[in-house]
């Protein structure tokens, strides 16, 4: 799996302007700019992939949030990166998780779809060992 993110972001600001940001670049999350963002969009870099295009309308007084989560199987050798975006307001984060097969999961900090995927990857590795491959 590539060590570059699958997404870039587009921020629509309160004045209507659009800004594209590289999520891997230090400084993309300028606090003032995020506070003025009313629509946050994640655009897949590869339009032929199954990564979903994601757009969230940011509630008044909230700011957009974004992170990725890397899961690694020691011995099994899998490396799986997924993404989450949403908004933060009044001390509470509202996440939607995005997966490489187009699935999404909302309203959690610990997505169960990710657990299903890592189980499947571990099972595939065990089967490979059992088959002597």
């Amino acid at each position, binding site marked *: 799996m590539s060590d*570059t993110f699958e997404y870039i972001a587009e921020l629509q600001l309160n004045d209507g302007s659009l800004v594209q940001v590289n999520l891997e670049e230090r400084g993309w999350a300028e606090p003032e700019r995020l506070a003025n963002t009313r629509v946050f969009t994640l655009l897949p870099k590869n339009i032929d992939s199954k990564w979903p295009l994601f757009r969230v309308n940011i509630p008044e007084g909230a700011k957009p949030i974004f992170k990725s989560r890397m*899961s690694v199987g020691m011995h099994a050798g899998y490396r799986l990166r997924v993404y989450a975006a949403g908004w933060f307001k009044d001390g509470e984060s509202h996440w939607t998780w995005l997966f490489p097969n187009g699935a999404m999961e909302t309203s959690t900090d610990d997505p169960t779809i990710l657990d299903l995927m890592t189980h499947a990857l571990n099972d595939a590795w065990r089967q490979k060992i059992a088959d002597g491959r």
Partner: protein
Amino acid sequence: MAASLSLRVYTGTNAATESAAVTGIDFISADNATNSLANRQANPVSVGTNSFSKHLRLKIDTAPANSVSNFKFWTDGTGQANVGLRAKLAQGTGGATPGTGGTTPSATALTGDVDAYTLTSGAKGTWDSASYSTLNHVTKELQLQLQPTASAAAGNWTQETFNYSYDET
């Protein structure tokens, strides 16, 4: 570029000697970072004794844009009969490599540890709750130890699936 982290094994006095990046670990009757069949054959763990504890940290090989955090560890929740696997998370202090507060690996049973098989995808263990942003910085330690009882069957221990995750912003 996104952050890149690798798993390192820490050996020697105070677990201060950092290995190269590893993709697997051996539970053996010696303190080394080698992961190979030959190593396991040369350093078997006798039933009724413990393996040397394995001291692990994640190291930042490519720095993130902001930080990496929320380090979790879990197993598949099932093991071999009469072969315990113990874990001690969030040990020592992270920071500049090789970190601080590590303890010397030994075959003495860990104390203050938990059954690693209770750390599952539904109840992940917290390896480290701190956040890091600097190249070559490392997390706190995760210590693991195999404890086969006197009733354990001799032979290869079934290869286990260990998983870890972290968040990046």
